[in-house]
């Protein structure tokens, strides 16, 4: 090959050929643009703000609480903390899923549509590396800015409102559930990007699952065991130290985690078969 001998050739595993360069390119879209700080402010402000309202301001939810509800929680302060966590986990987890879907719906589809994927794959790039770069480069910032920062902010608020450090173990476990829920929708969205050539079905399926999953689960209860539809509720219960009903158990957590990994495998398989 005619080449400049002073240049060192890239030496990567064949299955991961092109990964590091693609990962840097994908990361650049986060870190060398406004995207990271906009999301950091947006989600911390949005979820933290709603939770703060519940924790620090008099609101109808707390004012209208019955004596039984307050007694069941162990007092007004405990009840207030529960309401705050309920907002953060039961409302916040689906919101983060919607944010994740919006942020990633174009990651694969957009490059398929504008021809960039075809151009990239004319370079020595393994298709598996392409999907893995898309996944990993989005996972870290989404977990940092959509999950990590708001969770840290809310934990701080819970500790301030309770005037003691809030029990970290349960809270971290709940944030773990939030992470799995977010990763489920991230991987589902990326996978659908390898199946469809327009946004309609991608947004329809993912948002339909987030917003309408609970309704479907009401009709077909078995689905609640294998989908992430119960995770917001389980997240809240875990964080507030309430026992998760045995009927539900941890199966939605495990199956959502397994499905998240499975979606990436399917995305790789599908993308390897794709023709341009």
């Amino acid at each position, binding site marked *: 090959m005619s080449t400049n001998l002073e240049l060192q050739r890239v030496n990567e595993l064949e299955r991961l050929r092109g990964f590091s360069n693609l990962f*840097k390119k994908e990361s650049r879209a986060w870190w060398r643009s406004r995207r990271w700080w906009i999301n950091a402010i947006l989600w911390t402000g949005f979820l933290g703000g709603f939770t703060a309202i519940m924790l620090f301001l008099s609101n109808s939810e707390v004012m209208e609480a019955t004596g039984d509800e307050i007694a069941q929680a162990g007092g007004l302060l405990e009840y207030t903390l529960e309401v705050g966590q309920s907002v953060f986990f039961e409302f916040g987890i689906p919101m983060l899923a919607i944010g994740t879907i919006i942020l990633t719906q174009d990651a694969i589809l957009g490059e398929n549509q504008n021809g960039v994927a075809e151009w990239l794959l004319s370079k020595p790039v393994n298709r598996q590396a392409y999907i893995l770069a898309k996944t990993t480069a989005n996972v870290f910032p989404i977990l940092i800015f959509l999950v990590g920062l708001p969770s840290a902010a809310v934990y701080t608020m819970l500790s301030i409102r309770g005037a003691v450090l809030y029990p970290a173990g349960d809270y971290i476990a709940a944030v773990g559930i939030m992470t799995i829920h977010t990763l489920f929708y991230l991987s589902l969205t990326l996978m659908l990007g390898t199946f469809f050539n327009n946004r309609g079905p991608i947004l329809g399926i993912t948002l339909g699952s987030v917003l309408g999953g609970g309704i479907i689960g009401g009709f077909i209860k078995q689905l609640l065991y294998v989908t992430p539809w119960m995770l917001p509720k389980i997240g809240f219960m875990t964080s507030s130290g309430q026992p998760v009903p045995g009927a539900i158990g941890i199966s939605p957590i495990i199956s959502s985690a397994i499905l998240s990994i499975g979606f990436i495998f399917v995305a790789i398989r599908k993308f390897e078969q794709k023709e341009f």
Partner: protein
Amino acid sequence: MNLIDDYVIETTGLSKSFGDVQALKDVNLKVPQHSIFGFLGPNGAGKTTLMKLLIGLARPTAGTGKIFGCDIVKDSIAIRERIGYLPQHPRFIEEMTARENLLFTAKFFFNGPAQKINERCDEMLDLVGLIDKADRSIKGFSGGEKQRLGIALAQVNYPDLLILDEPASALDPLGRQAVLDIMERLRKYTTIFYSTHILDDVQRVSDTVAILNNGRLITAGPIEQILNGRDGVVYSLAIRGKAEKLDERLSTLSWVTKTSSLQQKGTNIWQISVSDELEAEKNLLRFVLADPTLTVAEFKRKKFELEEVFMDIVKGDKNVN
């Protein structure tokens, strides 16, 4: 690649179907090393499909293909390591400048030293005349500039083979000229396999040509051979006088294979195909002038324009089908 192997690209029975539509049928193609190989065909002939098969963007439904002796399906990454590809509509990372796009592309092949990679990128920007626009946003680039940047991106890895899909088709005459000039400059470094439907471009820069129509390879070979036409060597004579019996007289010559004539402003223009060029040069004119009623206003060996050959071949192919 094997040193004794003279062909960069070799396909055998390569075919591709999309459902019921057969885009490529049994293509057997050989692209010699260090050639500028023009791949001609009307729109929809299957040129882009063949290129996509070669670089692994699509899979053949039948047949095999080799580049540098490597299988186009099994060894696609090893092949792409050594080729440069310019798609019909070049794409870039729009958020990056021209230089950043080049650096990004170079890093698929090289991981250092950074200074040498930068030098290579500058060399490419210089080659395509974009060094003064290197740090500008690509969004403001004209079609011709984008095409030239596309060629720079394709060439950044010192490819042994450049595959260019319609590199000049969408450009104005100046843009086309610039792209053809770059191809000429790259000739000494690499083999260039490019598709086009602009026959003038092929005649200007190519040394080898293949013609594809309806997914079938109709002809391929050195451009001189193609320009000789399908009827072999043809002589053209402008004859005045009563030439009614000339056809009959010519048919007695064993080396004359085909004749045709047409009337043009009182002159008969005869096209005479021959199988023996030497015999024709020596005796054809003498033979015609042996008839004292005839005068020959012009006698020359016919030189075909590629457009003429192309139309003849493509029309002939349609008639066969």
